[in-house]
C-alpha cells in the first residue's frame, strides 16, 4: 500500500488540543516524502475531432451530471465547469478576417486551464484554493468565504460563483459526489476524485470522437506527451504567462 494513503492519528486525539499540531506535522511530513513522484496532469483537445459531431455536448453533460453542477435558467447565475464558446471569443487575439469566416461555427471547449502559474491561487485571502502536488488547482469549499477575488483574477472566466442555493437546480443528484452550498466559488477539478482512483476525467471518457486526451506531462511516454510532441498546439492567452495545461490541437 501507498504510504501517503495513511493518516495516522490513533490515540493522539484522546490527549487533547496539543496533539493537533503533532498530527499535522506527521501528516505534512508524509506528504512531503512523496514529491519525487509528482505528476503534471494536462489535457489536449483536438479541434478536428471535436467538430465532427455538430451540437454534441456529451462531455459537458457527463461532467455536469457527475459533479452535480446545477443548471440555472438565469444566465447571470450560470455555473459551468466545462462549456463551449465561439472560436473568436476564446481565441480573440488569434482571429483575423479570414479565420472569422472559416472558423465561425467552430465551438471551442473551455474549462479550467489548471495553470502552472495560477493567478487565482495567489489572490485567495484564505488559501481556499491552491495548486496540489500534481498541478491541479483545487478549491476547498469548506474554507471559501466567497469574496470572488479569484474570479476577478482568472483570465479565462473558468470560475463560477453560487449566487443562490444550487440544490434545487440540480436535475438529478449524484450521491457519490458532494454538491456545493450558496456563497462559494466552484470550477472544474480535472476530475481529481476520479484520477486518484485511476479513472479518466468524465469529459474525456464521454467523448464519442476521442477528441480529448488526458495524461501526465512528466511522463514522456504518456499519450498526451507524445501527442504534443508531434502535433502543433496552442494555449489560451499564453502571453499572460499562466502556462495553461489545456492544449488545443489543430
Amino acid at each position, binding site marked *: 500500500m501507498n504510504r501517503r494513503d495513511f493518516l495516522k492519528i490513533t490515540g493522539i486525539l484522546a490527549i487533547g488540543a496539543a496533539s493537533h499540531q503533532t498530527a499535522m506535522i506527521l501528516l505534512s511530513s508524509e506528504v512531503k516524502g512523496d514529491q519525487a513522484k509528482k505528476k503534471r496532469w494536462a489535457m489536449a483537445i483536438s479541434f478536428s475531432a471535436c467538430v465532427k459531431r455538430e451540437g454534441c455536448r456529451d462531455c459537458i453533460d457527463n461532467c455536469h451530471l457527475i459533479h452535480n453542477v446545477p443548471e440555472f435558467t438565469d444566465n447571470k447565475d450560470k455555473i459551468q465547469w466545462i462549456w463551449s464558446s465561439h472560436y473568436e471569443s476564446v481565441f480573440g487575439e488569434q482571429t483575423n478576417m479570414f479565420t472569422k469566416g472559416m472558423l465561425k461555427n467552430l465551438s471551442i471547449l473551455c474549462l479550467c486551464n489548471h495553470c502552472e502559474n495560477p493567478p487565482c491561487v495567489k489572490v485567495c485571502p484564505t*488559501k481556499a484554493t491552491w495548486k496540489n502536488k500534481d498541478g491541479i488547482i483545487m478549491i476547498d469549499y469548506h474554507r471559501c468565504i*466567497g469574496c470572488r477575488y479569484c474570479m476577478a483574477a482568472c483570465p479565462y*472566466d473558468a470560475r463560477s460563483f453560487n*449566487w443562490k442555493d444550487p440544490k434545487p437546480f440540480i436535475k438529478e443528484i449524484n450521491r457519490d459526489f458532494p454538491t456545493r452550498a450558496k*456563497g*462559494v466559488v466552484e470550477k472544474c477539478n480535472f476530475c481529481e476524485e476520479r484520477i486518484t482512483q485511476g479513472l479518466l476525467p468524465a469529459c474525456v471518457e464521454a467523448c464519442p470522437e476521442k477528441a480529448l486526451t488526458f495524461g501526465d506531462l512528466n511522463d514522456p511516454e504518456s499519450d498526451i506527451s507524445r501527442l504534443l510532441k508531434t502535433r502543433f498546439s496552442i494555449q489560451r492567452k499564453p502571453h499572460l504567462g499562466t502556462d495553461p495545461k489545456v492544449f488545443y490541437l489543430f
Partner: protein
Amino acid sequence: MIEKAFKGTIGYWLWLCFLSALALAGFISYLRQLDIGLGITGMGRDVSWGLYIANFTFFVGIAASSVVVVLPYYLHDYKKFGDIIILGEFLAVSSVVVTILFILVDLGVPSRVLNVLIYPSPSSLLFWDMVVLTGYLILNIVIGWWSFDAKVKEIEPPIWIKPLVYISIPWAISIHTVTAFIYSGLSAKPLWHTALLAPRFLASAFASGPSVLIVLCFIIRRWFGFNIERDVIKKIAIIVTYALSIHIFFMLAEIYTVLYSDLPSHKSHFEFLFLGVPGNRFLIPWTWGSTVGAIIAFVLFLISHKKNDSLVIFASIITVVSIWLEKGFCLIIGGFVPTPFEEYPKYVPTIFELFITLGIYAAGGLILTILYKTVVSFRQSK
C-alpha cells in the same frame, strides 16, 4: 463626553431617527440577502463585483484623505488646522467602518470571514487590505479620541500620541495603495492593470475626501452654528484644486497611453466606457458625467476663491459625485466589461442592493453624526 451626543434639538433627533430607519431597512434587506444569497443583487457570473466593492473602494479613499489635514498640522505646524483635524480623523473612523461593512456584505459566506485571520495568506492583497484597514481604524480611534479628550480637559495630549500620528500618515497612504494593488495586480483585467492606478487612487482620494470635509464643515456651521474659519476651508479648497488637477492629468495620461498604443484588450474597456457598444451603452452617461464633472469642479475651484461659499459647496459636491462615479462605479464595472470572452453584459443594481448600500451609508452617517455632535457640543460649551 459622548453623552453630549444624546442631547440635541428635535431636528437632531429626527435626523438620527431617519438614519436609524435607513440602516434598519438596509439590515432587513441584508437578512434577505443572507437567506437567498448574493443572487438577489445585480451581480452575476460576468460582472462579479458591483456596487458594494465600488463603494468600498471609494470610501477607502475618503478614509485615507484625512491625512491631508493631519499632515499640514503635524508636519508643517499649520496651527489653523487644529480645529478641523479632529473632524478629519472622525470622518476617517466612520469611513473605515463603512468600508469594512461593504466588504462584509459582499462575502458569499460571511460567517467564515475569520478564515482570513485563521489562515493568513500574505500573497493575497485582500489579506493585506484587512490588515491595513483594521490598523488604520484603530490608529484613528486612538489618536482622535485621546487628543480630543486632552482638549476637553485642557491638558497636553499624552506623549505617545505624536509617534502614532507620524505612523498614521504613511499608513493612510498605504490603505489606498493596497486597495489599488488589489486591482492593478490582476493581469486578467486590462482596465485595472496599470501602475498608475495607485497614484490615481491617491490623487482622486485627496480631491474627494477633503471635498466631503468641506461640505461637512458647511453643514455643521448651518445646523449647529459651529464656525470653521474661512481661511481653513479656503486652504482645504486649494488642496482639493491641486489634487483634482493631478487626478485629471493622470486620467488624461491613462487615456493617451491606451488610445495611442491601440492595444485592443485595453482599448475595448475605454471604448465601452466612453462610447458603449451596440445594445449596451449603460455606462456612457456616468463616464462622461464623471469626466466632465471633474473638469467643471476644477474650474469652479480655481475661480471660487474670489466668490461666495455656495460656489465652493457646489464644486465640492460635484467633485465627490464625479470621483464616486469614476473610481467606484465605472472603474469596477468597466473592469469586467468586456469579459474575457468579449461579451458586454449589463449590470444594474437591484433594489435590495441599493437598500443595503444606503443602509451602510446610514450606519456610517450615524457614527459620524454622533462623533461630530460630541465635538461640536464640547466646543460650544466652552
